[in-house]
């Protein structure tokens, strides 16, 4: 089986969010970048587990981005994977990322593709579905469990207030979230091995350079005016405020 995991780079979860003076771009100074947690903890780890279960699995990683995503790809390779690809394109929305990856999939041929649930910076939640749509492959989103018996994939996904279990044949695209695997900390051996694993840079297809969606400007949300503290023992006052002032109960 040949598996591809889509890896994106994102600002650290504790990063201070600020913008350039013209409000047009994210201020990256002093910001640490990490592998998007959904990609690292869930998609990648579950793929590495599959390779452990089926050692003849070929596991590739891909990221669409500038040279700055290479350290992120190396970190991901330290957790697992045989080789990585970087599509040389600064992605500005979901479509170019999916178009770039789809082109690579058509050339390489894969059986299974994992993405994360969403990137925690732009919160698109779109690349996996868009990619599957371009390939005309079935797509299962928000998976909390994935097993493969050599023929049939059984996937559990989250739905409103419940769970759904589905069976599918490969090829298949799955977007992964919590539950599908447990976070792994890369060990020294993995980090050493990652240094020599191949990382290939590929050109982006022309279609991916079109402008589908763009960001005009950013703003920080309005700050709360401050907390209204209620003395313990005075819970009835809290209930009154929630009813009369906030009108939420």
């Amino acid at each position, binding site marked *: 089986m040949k598996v591809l995991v889509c890896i994106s780079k994102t600002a650290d979860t504790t990063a201070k*969010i600020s913008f350039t003076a013209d409000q047009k771009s994210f201020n990256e100074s002093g910001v640490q970048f990490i592998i998007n947690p959904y990609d690292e*903890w869930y998609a990648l780890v579950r793929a590495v587990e599959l390779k452990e279960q089926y050692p003849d699995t070929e596991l590739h990683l891909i990221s669409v981005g500038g040279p700055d995503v290479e350290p992120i790809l190396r970190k991901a390779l330290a957790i697992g994977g045989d080789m990585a690809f970087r599509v040389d394109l600064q992605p500005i929305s979901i479509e170019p990322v999916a178009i770039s990856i789809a082109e690579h999939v058509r050339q390489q041929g894969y059986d299974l593709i994992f993405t994360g649930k969403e990137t925690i910076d732009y919160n698109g939640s*779109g690349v996996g579905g*868009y990619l599957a*749509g*371009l390939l005309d492959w079935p797509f299962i989103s928000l998976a909390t469990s994935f097993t493969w018996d050599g023929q049939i994939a059984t996937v559990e996904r989250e*739905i409103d207030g419940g769970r759904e279990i589905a069976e599918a044949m490969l090829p298949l695209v799955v977007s992964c979230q919590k539950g599908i695997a447990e976070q792994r900390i890369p060990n020294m051996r993995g980090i050493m091995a990652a240094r020599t694993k191949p990382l290939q840079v590929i050109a982006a297809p022309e279609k991916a350079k079109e402008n589908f*969606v763009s960001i005009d400007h950013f703003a920080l949300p309005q700050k*709360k005016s401050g907390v209204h503290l209620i003395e313990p023992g005075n819970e009835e006052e809290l209930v009154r405020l929630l009813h009369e002032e*906030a009108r939420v109960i």
Partner: protein
Amino acid sequence: MAIVVFADHHQGEIKKAALEAIFYASEWATTQQQEVIAVVIGEVPHPSSLENLGQYGAHRVYYVNSSWLNDFDARLYSLVFREILEQLQAQICVLPHDFNGRALAPYLAAQWQAGLLTGVCSLPESDGSFQKQVFSGKALAWMHVHTARKVITLLPNTFSVKQQDRKATVENWQPSQVKADQRKIRVKELRTTQGRVPLSEASIIVSGGRGLKGPENWGMIEELAKVLGAATACSRPVADAGWRPHHEHVGQTGLTVRPNLYIAIGISGAIQHLAGVNGSKYIVVINKDPEAPFFQAADYGIVGDAFEVVPRLIEAVKKFKGLS
């Protein structure tokens, strides 16, 4: 021309987020003088009741009543939608940004060759831009979709619906290009927690953190939720420790929720937790540490021991509701 909306349902009951999407489309349609068509896929027990979608602004309902479409499948539903959109020569499709909507929207956008904007929280402004939360709610962005065809998903609970006295016409619609044998995914089992408010749709959420010490202390959290008609949630370490089920975990790496009221009990308010709840309209924090960062994000707070405050709060709510 028409704006087409995915009216997702569970056994005939249209989801709240889908009703919001219909209303959103109807507000958008008034400025564009377009017709709003709600698409209901899969059998429903009482098809005539679908005319009530008119109350939310739908002019027509396309009811695709094929039993082989009862189970959601992003690919099949997308094929059905593409056929409808092409037949109507529509340019805009609106979906709720919930579990199924988030799977269908990108698939459809790819197949229908449309631009995709997910999780918007505003109607298009005069310059055509949409507002969307980014950085897990820590910032807002204004975005443009440059393609003629647009697939938009609406963030749940950001757009309050106003009902009107109108009925939609319900029409049966059958795909001619999509067939049952194109299904590649088979749903084996569907489990819903009966009688509980799903977290994603809850207007009130009572959430507990590590400050509650252990799973045996969740009785009062559940009782408070029950008297308020709320859903329950928790912080990540609580789910990781197995005190509560994983699907209750909210935050950056869990579920993002946007209720009208979020009550956080014994949760410190780490930035990754706030990322999943800062879209709540009102936040109440109960924490014994006055320095807990959550108070900075709160509207109301009680500095005190949860084991004393929560039982008194339950009594106060019961009294208010006339339950005791």
